[in-house]
């Protein structure tokens, strides 16, 4: 959503999201605006005030200004429901309140944020865990929520999701498991060794993760930045639906962000035996990226 004079002050954003994502028990809901929302699907109403997510045994209804209503309690609670609350529901609440999502994990560096993006399996969470083991505080995992300023600067909200790692990444990073997500989704919740951050910080750089034989960190050209910011992650699709944004408006928004944000490609081998080397390569350059 393009910036406007009615946007909440940054200090209020954390409080806003905390209020909007309060969870309450509620009735089972399978229709919105008279439309049946089937299991495994989600729906945003035309007023952009209500977001309904259905699964086989439960429904989750986000109502703007009122919070999140979950019903009924089933064997899926709290694990499976919690994942939806952290994922699509949180993204919907953020987007319906004018915030912008990036599919990225991030660390806090020198009063700012350096984020890592790439498709599923690119190694975002693993890299985050590796840098955290070197002392960099975790800022967020998997989804970065931000307010876009008038000039395209991004003020990032501290992460709302727990760090999740596959078992091989746990071993590679030395991260401590604090429990398995679920039998159906056997990632482990992990505690970031470098701690985390609880305040809003500006985004300083975005790193696009790629695989290559040797490490290289290369700045992205201005024109290519816009294309790289245009992703099709489910949180971005929720944003585009919530903002009812036209193609032209989306282009102008991404161009505004691209004009301000430094973006680099980080190409590196994904060989687990070289993880220390590749993480160290990036760690040495983090402070320079955050300037």
């Amino acid at each position, binding site marked *: 959503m393009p910036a406007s004079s009615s946007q909440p002050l940054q200090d209020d954003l954390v409080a806003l999201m905390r209020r909007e994502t309060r969870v309450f028990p509620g009735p089972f809901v399978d229709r919105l605006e008279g439309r049946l929302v089937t299991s495994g699907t989600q729906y945003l109403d035309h007023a952009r005030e209500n977001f309904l997510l259905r699964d086989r045994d439960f429904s989750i209804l986000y109502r703007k200004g009122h919070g999140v209503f979950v019903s009924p309690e089933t064997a899926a609670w709290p694990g499976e429901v919690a994942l939806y609350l952290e994922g699509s529901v949180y993204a919907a609440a953020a987007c319906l309140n004018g915030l912008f999502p990036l599919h990225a994990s991030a660390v806090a560096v020198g009063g700012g944020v350096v984020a890592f993006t790439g498709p599923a399996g690119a190694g975002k969470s693993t890299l985050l865990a590796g840098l955290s083991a070197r002392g960099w505080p975790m800022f967020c995992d998997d989804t970065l929520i931000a307010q876009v300023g008038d000039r395209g600067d991004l003020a990032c909200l501290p992460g709302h999701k727990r760090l999740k790692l596959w078992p091989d990444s746990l071993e590679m990073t030395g991260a401590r498991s604090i429990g398995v997500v679920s039998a159906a989704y056997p990632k482990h919740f992990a505690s970031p060794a470098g701690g985390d951050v609880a305040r809003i910080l500006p985004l300083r750089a975005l790193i696009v993760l790629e695989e290559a034989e040797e490490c290289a960190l290369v700045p992205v050209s*201005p*024109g*290519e930045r816009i294309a790289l910011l245009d992703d099709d992650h489910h949180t971005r699709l929720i944003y585009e639906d919530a903002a009812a944004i036209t193609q032209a408006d989306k282009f102008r928004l991404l161009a505004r962000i691209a004009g301000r944000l430094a973006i680099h490609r980080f190409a590196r081998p994904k060989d687990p035996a070289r993880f220390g080397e590749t993480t160290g390569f990036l760690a040495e350059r983090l402070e320079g990226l955050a300037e």
Partner: protein
Amino acid sequence: MTEETGGRIVKLTDRFVETAIGDETVIMRLADGDFFALDGTSLAIWQAIDGARDRAKVSEAVGLLHQGDPAEIRRDVDAFIGELVAAGFVAG
């Protein structure tokens, strides 16, 4: 050259949006969201297309900014305008 434009190269502004970023211009085709980045000579040609110039005049304008063999500049201009026509950004 078409009857509609009388030889002039005309941007079809309802089919794209553009923005300058750094020393590039990025164009997004509205029909499919595809991006195109222009810099250097391609950007000079794009900027020289003002709706009043034909290919010869566009080449002339580019030649004022970029020294080179006029025939080669004309070939570059023809080729790039052909790409722009194929992409749906200009007519003429």
